């Protein structure tokens, strides 16, 4: 331990790490995180496969399970449009347009929240629960897992919103990672929804 004490000098900080790749840490980090998220969804899709293809006899969805595909379709459109708004926010701040940034992020948040609200409403009126057969289970399993991700995305975007209002982001390359990184995550949430929607509601 003495050796430690001897070397402790607060005078200087750590040396700057050598940047050995073109990609920056935060972006690579969120991409890898998305890989593991995709695999988490993969586990639930695997379960979907077993429940529908291996275990199920008879029609799918079974008698008596009606999905409001039209409403969910509108909801899908809402979520997809939020991908464009978050992209607009990023492009705005890259051009130094703070108003565009704030408008874009705010719109994204509201669209995401609307999506969640409509989905919650759908749960209330859908007429079956997660306890009703394999279909109920996997319907709530997949859409619920996705809903949890939308919630996380909204939390991240809320932080980005706060910091955008406070003017923490500028157009310099590394000074708007706080918009870029949640944005990447948000795109992932959107793409994932398209897959979940197609699987659960359409196929």
């Amino acid at each position: 331990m003495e050796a430690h004490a001897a070397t402790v000098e607060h005078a200087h900080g750590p040396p700057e790490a050598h940047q050995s790749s073109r990609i920056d840490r935060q972006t690579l980090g969120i991409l890898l995180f998305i890989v593991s998220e995709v695999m988490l969804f993969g586990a639930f899709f695997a379960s979907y496969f077993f429940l529908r293809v291996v275990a199920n006899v008879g029609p799918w969805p079974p008698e008596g399970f009606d999905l409001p595909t039209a409403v969910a379709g509108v909801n899908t459109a809402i979520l997809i449009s939020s991908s464009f708004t978050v992209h607009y926010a990023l492009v705005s701040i890259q051009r130094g347009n703070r108003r565009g940034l704030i408008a874009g992020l705010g719109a994204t948040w509201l669209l995401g929240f609307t999506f969640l609200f409509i989905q919650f409403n759908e749960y209330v009126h859908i007429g079956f629960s997660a306890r009703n057969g394999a279909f109920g289970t996997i319907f709530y399993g997949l859409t619920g897992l996705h809903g949890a991700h939308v919630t996380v995305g909204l939390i991240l975007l809320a932080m980005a919103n706060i910091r955008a209002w406070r003017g923490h982001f500028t157009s310099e390359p590394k000074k708007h990672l706080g918009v870029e990184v949640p944005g990447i995550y948000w795109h992932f949430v959107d793409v994932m929804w398209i897959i979940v929607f197609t699987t659960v509601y359409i196929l």
Partner: protein
Amino acid sequence: MVAALKRPGLGRAALGGLLGFGFGYGLVVVLRLISGLPATQTAQTGYPQLIVGMITAAFGFLIGLGAFDYWFRWAAGAPTYPAELEHKAHGAHSWRDYFKFNTDHKVIGIQYICTTFVFFFIGGAMAMIMRTELAQPGTQIVEPGTFNSLFSAHAAIMIFVFVIPVFAGIANYVLPLMIGAPDMAFPRLNALSFWMLPIAGLLFVGSFLAPGGGFDAGWTGYAPLSTGAPLGQSFFNLGVQFAGASSVATALNFLVTIITMRAPGMNFWRLPLLVWANLSTSLLVVAATPFIAGVQFMVLFDRLLHTNFFQELNGGDVLSYQHIFWFYSHPAVYIMMLPGFGIVSEVISTHARKPIFGYRLMALALIGIIVLSYTVWAHHMFVSGMFAWLRIPMMITTLLIAVPTGIKIFSWLATLFGSKLHLRSTAMLFALGFIVTFTIGGISGVMLGMVPIDIHVSDTYFIVAHIHFVLFGGSVFTIFAGIYHWFPKMTGRMYDERLGRVHFWLTLVGMLGTFVPMHWIGMEGMPRRVADYSAQFGDWNLLISCFSFLLGAAQLIFLYNMIVSWKWGPLAGDNPWRARTIEWLVSSPPPIFNFDQIPRVVGGPYEYGVPGARHAILGPAEAEVGAAEPAVAGSAGTGPT
């Protein structure tokens, strides 16, 4: 007192845990009352108020510890500053700093290693109890039900809170140094990953206190055994989630660190093999661990919310548990082995003073193993009643894995060939022992990969023999090799080499005596996971138990050696093994920020005996170096990402 509870630390963490528990418990009670249900629910598989309470308690604990202080500031839009400058939270100035939320990778490495070894000894004690029970047929000291909980907890602890994280701990300490980085890419995430581990471990150990006893469905937790089991099973489900989240976060951290923070000149073909090993392990963790998280969530939902993922009567599919579980857990056996391969490569090359034979092939074999390991999961399910057509493809891929694994074994042997072997350094002894015992385990693995043999020995002691040859003879031996090898670097002191050798030989003898006979009684048909057995196996089991006590006792020598040497051992110097990799170029223990200046890498890591060869240069540019090799900047980042 009040001030102590306001400062981030263990005190505030304990308070946070309590408040968190109260919050979660209260939340469930309130929600239940609102929906017109009785306030609490204590059906066998239920207890939602306790489960939610435990989850929120864990978060309360982490918040209290200060794990989220920075992120809270960030979220609120307040000014933030990098962790390295928070003097209190970076680097160890006294032993107390090891009990705090600390962002220094070296402190975190030590925290990991010490914590995981605590769990190693707890899990080991459980094994000793089991061997006492099994010394004779009939009931000795524990009831069959308790025995079931013991072997389940033993395996869960050893796998999830010892082997997997101790490798993360060793790599945490040495990997940033090896690649010439001042720290990990995300120091706060790194600290958070560590602090999720004790939570997982406490859940596994604490399950014994749950009404109905500890979880008893094995470390595999197959449905429907697990979906109908008492409360203790939920402790397992939650513990796996915390351990899993911890290893995903660490793996992500390693990947980003290795890809973006290598010193100038450290291109992918100059990475020490330990770094390669952790690169490939981390790829496995990031892409496979979510599967076990997913499947444990499903079990939890089936238990708590009465969903039907695995409820055959309501349209669920019970076998899907095994498919999803093994799709993680076969890759997981390589998560438990590949970092060990890396350690052994370092140890053998350094102590034999020879370049690694076939360095590039060694790295490529790792990649081969991780790709193949996704294609073999159903070899654990040959007798489960799964699709019959899947058996032969799984058998073929399983046998194929022996090829890259064999490449590694032969490379180590070729590295050793012609070197002056002296059996004095404990690290080298463990590495050599590893080659022998792991090869035996690999051979029994290939036998198990063949469907007819597997059907014969499924669920017998042959499996127990196999997993212990690969996990004890494989993983644990490499862990010991790594600990002895880097002990001087981590503590600045030398351990007692004589005691180390005694530890090795007793461990080897105890290990062989314990697990070799298990092959035999397994072939004869003694089932695994039982507290009692037919009298014909009595003699063998007595012998096994005796050797296992020897094995257990030998570990106490290790413990003694480590503790005493850490405090009183002779000073080790910077580079007692005359090794080449960068961690040996700095002081022991290394300075708080690792380097004053990022080193420059000018050659391969293992060029022992090559005249004039250098791996890396520390400090200000020397004239002779300028000509040696142009520093590879920017362009080095285009490796296998």
